[in-house]
């Protein structure tokens, strides 16, 4: 088979679709990011509408950036590079298209459900259970397509990029499934089987490795393919790239607990996370240096070619982020950085610099190649590069400054042992100007992106008539008929198909066994764990039905995105919020709500700190209470009726997970909630508060807030 006919077999149509999806979703993710940034700069951008408040927009932004923008980039790059590296077409066109449309459908369903408040309340894992299942199915289809393509390869050696892709598939599948074990209590509502510290461990085991295996390893695969290709020079050291791969794969999985430093998590687990995080520095930098050294002797090309500029700069940002990450994982640095905008600066260095720029470099490289033409304008791409770079620098500098300023202010204790800035809002007012600067940096990055869109559209229009528009459907080279598909899937004869069966079966069996055992074992452990030693010295009261309903509203509104519920074992935290939290405090919390960012104060012990009426007025208009507050208004909570229709099912599900509700409490949950709400509302009314709140959502939320820190008693 000559080279020409091999090439004709490649499925580039699906690559084009993934590329266009990448570009479209990038715009959505960036716009949502700018909007969220503006909401922090001024509360007025929340518009007083529930669907647009920060607590619902922020998960939409992160999901769009990670799963829609980065996800489609990965798939486009993998489908393109893999076929070439293995010299074969993707295994099954049907599976490729199922993958493409399935993934876009998942994204659309996220875009609908998240603003409506359907969320699990776990970061980057907000999507509710039916979508979780869809993700698992589509992901496995993608993996199957990939593994089968590797099996059909016409090139014996599996290039290092493909190893990175494979690790991505295997690990993300495992993480997603383990973190998705939840009990449905409605069509779009579920509780994780894990509670409190267990949920925290599982979530950040997932959360950190989502960064590692969704935003790092696949992009490293792309780096090892597109940098050598774009500069037309071999990678500096292939040996080093192999070492880079294996060391990352073995170390990454243990680093998750660095998200829980100085919390109620046992000390040894914190140290474990910290040590592995610091170890990651070495292989990460090995890979970064390997990427950059590939460009040695070719810096003149980098100067002239925007593709290389994007790819090289992405690699530099990879180096920066992987230097900063281990640094922030050191316990004493985390004291300052955790819960502040420093973390936001760190992730955006990774997301905008590493993932974003690598995507853009890949798009500028691939679009002319796939549409068989030249890039419409190099100078526009150059301008995009500089706008983007300056945008990121402005973004990161402002957020570093904001994070470190706020961290230092919050931790400042004077010689007499008092907090220097006792009011949380003092530290917020100080950094609000920086929120405007950050939004400006984001806008610059977005304008650069618009140039890319224009450039890409123009480039595609330049394409020769034979290969028009997105699909390239009338292109004889790319257009493959159904007959060809059948031939290419089964073209290798029955022998090869049979030969492949045992391996597929083995893989599927392992997956099935893993899933099965996890589903069987985990809930059992989650339940028996309730009697373990950490809880022995404490008596923890479960929430009443009204408080539970309020907690579900707390999750719906995304309160955890700005308020933590974890007082750390640090003097300043204890002085500000009260005694450090014990594991027992979140013993029955499905899901845990420790949070990862404090745009507002910690709420772990807010119960009883203020009268009920305070909370009613505060939710109606935070600025009536704290004039400089940047919190959105939550008027609809005082208007919408509290839905108790599924509270019995919810309590009974929690009872099954080991929360000690009596059967009477479960069966009487609606009555109990109504009684408690009526009493609370009457008391508020008597104090001069709003009338007729007994059946409104706000009453449940306030009941929950007043329970925080009140449930645990030392025996």
């Amino acid at each position, binding site marked *: 088979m000559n080279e020409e006919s091999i090439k004709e077999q490649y499925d580039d149509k699906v690559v084009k679709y993934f590329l266009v999806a990448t570009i479209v979703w990038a715009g959505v993710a960036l716009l949502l990011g700018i909007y969220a940034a503006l909401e922090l700069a001024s509360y007025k951008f929340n518009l007083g509408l529930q669907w647009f408040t920060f607590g619902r927009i922020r998960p939409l932004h992160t999901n769009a950036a990670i799963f829609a923008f980065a996800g489609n980039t990965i798939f486009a790059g993998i489908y393109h590079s893999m076929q070439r590296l293995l010299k074969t077409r993707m295994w099954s066109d049907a599976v490729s298209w199922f993958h493409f449309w399935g993934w876009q459908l998942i994204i659309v369903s996220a875009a609908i459900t998240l603003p409506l408040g359907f969320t699990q309340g776990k970061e980057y894992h907000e999507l509710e259970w039916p979508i979780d299942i869809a993700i698992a199915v589509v992901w496995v289809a993608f993996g199957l397509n990939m593994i089968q393509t590797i099996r059909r390869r016409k090139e014996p050696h599996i290039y290092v990029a493909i190893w990175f892709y494979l690790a991505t598939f295997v690990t993300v599948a495992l993480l997603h499934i383990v973190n998705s074990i939840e009990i449905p209590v409605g069509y779009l509502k579920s509780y994780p089987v894990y509670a409190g510290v267990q949920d925290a461990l599982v979530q950040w085991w997932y959360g950190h490795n989502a960064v590692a295996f969704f935003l790092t390893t696949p992009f490293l695969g792309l780096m090892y393919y597109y940098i050598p290709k774009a500069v037309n020079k071999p990678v500096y050291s292939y040996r080093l790239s192999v070492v880079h791969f294996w060391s990352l794969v073995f170390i990454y*999985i243990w680093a998750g607990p660095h998200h829980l430093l100085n919390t109620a998590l046992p000390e040894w687990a914190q140290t474990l996370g910290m040590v592995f995080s610091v170890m990651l520095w070495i292989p990460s930098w090995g890979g970064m240096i390997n990427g950059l050294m590939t460009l040695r002797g070719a810096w003149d090309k980098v100067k002239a070619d925007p593709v290389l500029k994007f790819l090289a700069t992405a690699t530099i940002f990879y180096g920066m982020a992987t230097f900063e990450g281990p640094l922030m994982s050191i316990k004493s640095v985390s004291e300052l950085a955790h819960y502040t905008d420093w973390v936001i600066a760190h992730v955006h260095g990774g997301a905008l610099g590493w993932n974003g720029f690598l995507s853009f470099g890949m798009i500028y490289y691939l679009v002319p190649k796939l549409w068989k033409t030249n890039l419409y304008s190099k100078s526009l791409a150059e301008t995009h590069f500089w706008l983007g770079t300056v945008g990121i620098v402005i973004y990161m500098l402002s957020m570093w400054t904001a994070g470190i300023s706020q961290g230092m202010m919050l931790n400042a204790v004077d010689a007499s042992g008092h907090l220097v800035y006792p009011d949380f809002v003092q530290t917020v007012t100080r950094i609000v100007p920086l929120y405007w600067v950050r939004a400006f940096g984001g806008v610059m990055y977005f304008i650069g992106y618009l140039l890319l869109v224009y450039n890409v559209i123009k480039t595609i229009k330049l394409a020769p008539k034979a290969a028009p528009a997105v699909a390239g459907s009338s292109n004889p080279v790319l257009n493959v008929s159904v007959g060809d598909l059948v031939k290419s899937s089964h073209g290798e004869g029955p022998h090869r198909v049979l030969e492949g069966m045992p391996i597929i079966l083995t893989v599927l069996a392992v997956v099935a066994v893993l899933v099965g055992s996890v589903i069987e074992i985990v809930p059992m452990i989650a339940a028996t764990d309730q009697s373990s030693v950490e809880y022995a010295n404490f008596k923890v009261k479960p929430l009443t039905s009204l408080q539970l309903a309020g907690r579900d509203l707390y999750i719906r509104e995304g309160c955890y995105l700005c308020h933590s519920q974890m007082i750390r074992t640090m003097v300043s935290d204890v002085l500000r919020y009260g005694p450090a939290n014990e594991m027992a405090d979140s013993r029955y919390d499905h899901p845990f709500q420790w949070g990862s960012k404090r745009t507002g104060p910690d709420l772990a012990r807010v119960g009883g700190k203020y009268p009920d009426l305070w909370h009613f007025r505060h939710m109606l208009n935070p600025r009536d209470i704290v004039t400089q507050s940047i919190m959105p208004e939550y008027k609809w909570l005082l208007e919408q009726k509290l839905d108790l229709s599924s509270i019995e099912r919810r309590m009974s599900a929690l009872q099954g997970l080991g929360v000690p509700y009596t059967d009477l409490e479960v069966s009487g949950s609606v009555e109990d909630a109504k009684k408690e709400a009526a009493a609370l509302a009457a008391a508020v009314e008597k104090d001069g508060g709003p009338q007729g709140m007994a059946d409104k959502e706000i009453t449940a939320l306030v009941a929950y807030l007043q329970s925080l820190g009140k449930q645990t008693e030392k025996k």
Partner: protein
Amino acid sequence: MGILIVLVPLALLLGFFFVGVFLWGVKSGQCDDLESPKHRMLLEKDD
């Protein structure tokens, strides 16, 4: 913390799985030649 009974073995299992894949790679000759692949991937002109 009982969840560690699941998480640690699962992480170890994943580690062992990768060790297995690594050993398979070595055995099947994936690591025999760590020089030419980087040149060969450049040969195909993919436009």
